[in-house]
């Protein structure tokens, strides 16, 4: 679930070279193959797991509606195809544009298409800010462990790290959105834009930014807690390495050592870990979008699970998995390309 656990436990870095030999192409092909196999498992798992669900969707659909029994039987007929037939239909196209969400009576694919952009906007912004600020804090804290800055920042980030992100969101919403403890509520309580605002005008963008402020702040704080702790840990590791001792012994100025050698080296695993942490990012998206009624994929997942709306739930799970597996693959490939040690 979290980056911190991996690093804190001091485990060998997951993307640090495993003893791989052979030309880069082979490594790359191997990694792509692994991602594809992982994904294939997700698809199979996704299909069979949901067959276990109890329920009579057709019955529920017809409850309270004026329908003939023959009609209901005919509807059931459509649904009760042999499982293998269903399975092949599913794997042929898991994102079949013809499958309707049971909650929205709208093709799942269409719903996702509408909801993907708000999520990209919110998460993208939060990740970018969290990366910049988080790494900056990590560098300052990690270069002089035990300093006052380190103590304060590590304490703060550890506390943030211990927080359920949606709770932070709810508190921010109460204090800054609704208004409590004598503060007036300045920020909107939810949504992506005020109704009637045309989001294609500059005023509309400002309106979106205004709506985005609280959810984005929530996610940024939570993400930067993780990122800064990771950066701090890898910088501390780097400081211990022999070449740095050597560099300092040779009389290089502290700041030069940090900027030219330590930080760039510590940055690589951190950035890669940020890529690898997309699964953790997704968790935040689901709950925080829910709290702020941000109309993205996270809220869609929440809406899908209150039902539950199986076709929609299947699709969001698959989509999140693809995103995370894809990000992992990119991180691993980047590492192969950037870090010569992997290629050996």
């Amino acid at each position: 679930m979290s980056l911190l656990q991996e690093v804190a436990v001091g485990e060998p870095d997951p993307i640090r070279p495993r003893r791989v030999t052979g030309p880069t192409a082979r490594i790359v092909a191997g990694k792509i193959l692994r991602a594809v196999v992982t994904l294939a498992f997700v698809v199979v798992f996704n299909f069979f797991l949901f067959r276990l669900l109890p329920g009579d969707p057709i019955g529920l659909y017809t409850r309270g509606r004026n329908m003939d029994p023959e009609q209901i039987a005919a509807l059931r007929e459509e649904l009760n195809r042999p499982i293998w037939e269903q399975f092949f239909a599913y794997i042929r196209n898991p994102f079949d544009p013809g499958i309707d969400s049971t909650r929205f009576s709208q093709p799942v694919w269409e719903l996702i298409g509408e909801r993907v952009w708000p999520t990209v906007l919110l998460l993208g912004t939060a990740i970018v800010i969290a990366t910049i600020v988080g790494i900056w804090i990590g560098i300052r804290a990690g270069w002089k462990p035990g300093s006052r800055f380190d103590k304060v920042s590590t304490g703060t980030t550890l506390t943030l790290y211990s927080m359920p992100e949606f709770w932070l969101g709810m508190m921010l919403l109460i204090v800054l959105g609704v208004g409590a403890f004598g503060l007036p509520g300045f920020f909107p309580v939810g949504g992506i834009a005020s109704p009637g605002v045309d989001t294609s005008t500059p005023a509309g963008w400002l309106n979106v930014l205004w709506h985005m402020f609280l959810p984005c702040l929530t996610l940024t704080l939570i993400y930067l807690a993780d990122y800064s702790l990771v950066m701090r840990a890898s910088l501390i590791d780097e400081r211990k390495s022999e070449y740095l001792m050597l560099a300092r012994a040779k009389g290089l100025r502290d700041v030069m050592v940090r900027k030219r050698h330590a930080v760039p080296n510590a940055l690589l695993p951190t950035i890669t870990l940020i890529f690898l942490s997309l699964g953790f990012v997704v968790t935040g998206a689901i709950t925080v979008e829910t709290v702020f009624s941000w109309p993205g994929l996270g809220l869609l997942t929440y809406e899908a699970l209150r039902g539950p709306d199986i076709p929609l739930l299947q699709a969001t799970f698959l989509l999140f998995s693809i995103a995370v597996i894809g990000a992992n693959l990119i991180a691993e490939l980047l590492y192969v390309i950037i870090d010569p040690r992997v290629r050996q």
Partner: protein
Amino acid sequence: MAGLIILAFFVLVAILAPILISPESLDVTKATGERFDPPSLAYPLGTDEDGRSILLLLAYGTRISLTVGLAATLISMVIGTAVGIMAGHFRGAGSHALVGVTDWFLVIPFLPLAIVLATVLGPSTLNLIIVIGITSWAGTARLIRAQTLSIEGRPYIERSKALGAGNWHQMTRHVLPNVFPLVLANTTLTVAIVILSETTLSFLGLGDPLAPSWGAILDSAFSTGAVSQGAWWYVLPPGICVVLVVLAFTLVGRAMERIMEGRT
């Protein structure tokens, strides 16, 4: 140290909750307060939508949250340790399969997977424990596997192999005792994460709605409009409890790690 004190306090509350609190006071039909009363002498943390004392709910919730947290961690640790040792000990297809499964669980995003599993199993405290248990073991398994590989390289294991010790004997007598300190340190860190997971899943309505764990209390607060009414006393305390417990476990875990690093 602070971590240990916090933990001791919460464990005490969890144990004493049923003694200190009569079930009457949590019975919705006998609630005495008004809907969403702000904190007062009678209700130090105010009341919920049924007029029940939030302080009492919270105390009772401690019990549920800690139970779920510890039980799920136990499942996670047992699976993680077993898979890790086996994957490290054996060679060949079986080992590859175990590593493959571990990697799969590591890559798949936790919350969507947990949501899917919890939806299929249905909402109950036991199912919540199972879901969290089986979605959180993979990190441990990888860690233990790495450790197992390094232990198995040590000379005395080689010797016992040469003496014809069986797989079971090797794994339980030699590997397990050696990885155990690591398992322990990892456990405290896992508890922290598991409690966060419990809170998140309960907030999403995937736990037993009638068992007021901290996450479930936050779910009630959210779905009954406590946020829009500015009823901060309904939202703030459960979150603080979560932060304190998670922080405490994390601090204790890190301290244990440091001690172990010092030893090796």
